[in-house]
């Protein structure tokens, strides 16, 4: 009988087993009558990496704090398999959390910071030592074990925060914009690191971010929030190719969102008129013919057509170098700005013809929310 086994057996309440599914059922939270999060329904499966994505103030942190037990719910419930979780205080939920500002204990050296949760669970000393060493190795901080958090760089603090959360082998890891304070290069490195940890430790992770690129590259499934409401839940591919409405499209890199009037239905497609050009697009969310609609198209799906081809004529206004391609902002004769990509670098002031692939043009109802 090893020490580890006894500790596991003796403290079942403080060491909740790993779940198969975690279900959020109509989770809502208001502040003084103002809904910060409304009716969040979500089922998280074991081993999943979920990203909560949305603009600032949309309720991402609120959702995470509700999950962690740091904010009481106004309505709804949270179920871990068949156990109701939202009535438990944070210390009994057994989730690990990485805070936006790290929240490292400033008076404890790195090693003690990481050991804190294990000590709270009364894990035997030898095992604490072993697991902390392992966690330190995992985040490459062996040499810094004796330092105080104030003596570390931002990226190192970040890794301590992650180590402190994952050393407990929590059934769920919650991360609130953990990379937002880091510089661009470190952010990319830590992103890979987080995904690596998630896979190698078999974690279940809920990750909050306002960076769509981060969310797309990390997550198995994304939850897009806006003004406290879920806009869409889906895999990165689904969100990327089939955004449910123009707000999601906006977030997913559809930089050209043109308010236009819908024409007639054409089979599965719908026509819109842009600058006198009749274009056929894919309708999303049933836009009515003749109504105000929003035509969404990614910069990379707009191309500069060969001279004399049919398309929208425009004038190049801004050219930005972006490595393999250039980003071009052009303005149509009617004054509509268009963002597109080009391989050959056009000059400012050039007259170009912009063409679009019909399948890539999405048509959303204008008032969708």
């Amino acid at each position, binding site marked *: 009988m090893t020490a580890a086994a006894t500790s596991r057996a003796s403290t079942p309440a*403080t060491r909740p087993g790993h779940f198969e599914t975690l279900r959020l059922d109509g989770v809502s939270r208001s502040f003084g009558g103002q809904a910060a999060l409304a009716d969040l329904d979500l089922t998280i499966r074991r081993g999943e990496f979920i990203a909560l994505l949305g603009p600032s103030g949309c309720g991402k942190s609120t959702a995470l704090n509700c999950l*962690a*037990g*740091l904010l009481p719910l106004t309505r709804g419930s949270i179920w871990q398999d068949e156990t109701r979780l939202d009535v438990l*205080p*944070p*210390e009994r*939920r*057994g*989730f*690990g*959390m990485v*805070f936006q*500002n*790290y*929240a*490292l*204990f*400033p*008076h404890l050296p790195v090693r003690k910071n990481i050991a*804190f*949760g294990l000590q*709270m*669970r009364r894990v035997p000393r030898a095992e604490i030592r072993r697991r902390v060493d392992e966690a330190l190795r995992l985040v490459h901080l062996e040499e810094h074990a004796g330092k*105080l*958090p*104030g003596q570390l760089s*931002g990226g190192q*603090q970040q890794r301590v*925060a992650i180590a*402190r*959360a994952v050393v*407990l082998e929590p059934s769920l890891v*919650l991360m609130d914009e953990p990379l937002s*304070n880091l510089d661009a290069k470190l952010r990319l490195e830590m992103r890979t690191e987080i995904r690596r940890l998630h896979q190698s430790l078999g974690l279940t992770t809920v990750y909050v971010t306002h960076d769509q690129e981060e969310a797309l590259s990390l997550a198995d499934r994304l939850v897009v929030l806006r003004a406290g409401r879920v806009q869409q839940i889906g895999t990165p591919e689904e969100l990327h190719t089939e955004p449910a409405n123009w707000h999601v499209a906006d977030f997913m890199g559809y930089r050209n969102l043109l308010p236009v009037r819908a024409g007639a239905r054409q089979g599965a497609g719908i026509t819109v008129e842009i600058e006198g050009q009749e274009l056929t697009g894919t309708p999303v969310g049933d836009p009515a013919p003749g109504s105000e609609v929003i035509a969404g198209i990614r910069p990379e799906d707009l191309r500069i057509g060969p001279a004399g081809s049919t398309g929208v004529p425009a004038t190049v206004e801004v050219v930005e170098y972006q490595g393999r391609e250039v980003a071009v902002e052009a303005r149509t004769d009617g004054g509509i700005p268009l963002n597109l990509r080009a391989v050959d670098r056009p000059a400012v002031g050039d007259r170009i013809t912009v063409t679009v692939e019909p399948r890539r043009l999405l048509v959303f109802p204008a008032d969708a929310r």
Partner: protein
Amino acid sequence: MTAINAATGGARPALRHRLAERGIDRQLLLLIPAALFVLILFIYPFLYGVGLSFQPTEGGALGAYREFFTDAYLRDTILTTLQLSLPAALLNVLASVPIAYRMRGRFRGKRLLTTLLVVPITLGTVLTAQGLLNFLGPTGWFNRTLLSSGLADAPVRLTNNYWGVFFSLVITGFPFAFLLVLSYLSGIDPTLERAAATLGAGRWQRFRRITLPLLAPGLATTFCLTFVLAFSVFPSAVLVGDPSGTTRVMSIAAYDAAYVRYDYPLASAVAVLMGVVELLVIAAVLGWRALLYTGSTAGGKG
């Protein structure tokens, strides 16, 4: 020519920069009038008093000190003062912690409650003493209630003795301690306790392992300040105490020496000794504080 200028310019930065490198800011010169004021009003009388204490009419330079330590009636005032001020300061700090801890968040009526707790500061010692006499005195409400309800046969003596002064010190010292502790507590990042909670720490553990260690240096400072306030107690020791017996504190001894016996050197010696005792206590507390973590109380960068 320009090259030479640039070179010398590089070698000799502006005077202001050179001073700044040594931590000297010319604007600090503006402090000179205030410094002079302090010098004239405080340091000169202080040095004068110290000098006076070494010039008694008899017994050589240390005569006044020798007299103080040989006369038990004088010597014991040190113990009397410490017996009053140390427990009072300790109680003030210890009582502030749980109350301030409960009040660190935002809640309805916080401002009213803070105001109520702070009122005793504005009352002053004399008014407090009068209130204590009315309330706790032999014919005060407290004793009348005790007697009429049959809980006691004779009035409980709570004034004109040790307890009267002790209560007065708590009433006037507590608000200071409370305000200080509250401000130290609100300086501690609340997400630290939330982080501890997600790591499995219960209420008591969070306080004990996170908040208390971060608060401890502030508590030491608060203790020193309330101790100094309590140590120089004079009005309440006379008004609600027993100034010739159990609450004969050092300041009373100094007053006696100066205005009853007209022995200024002895009075000065008592005053100097008061300072020395206070400094010893503060040095001990600050020595303990130096062993603690005293850095930032924030949870991370940015």
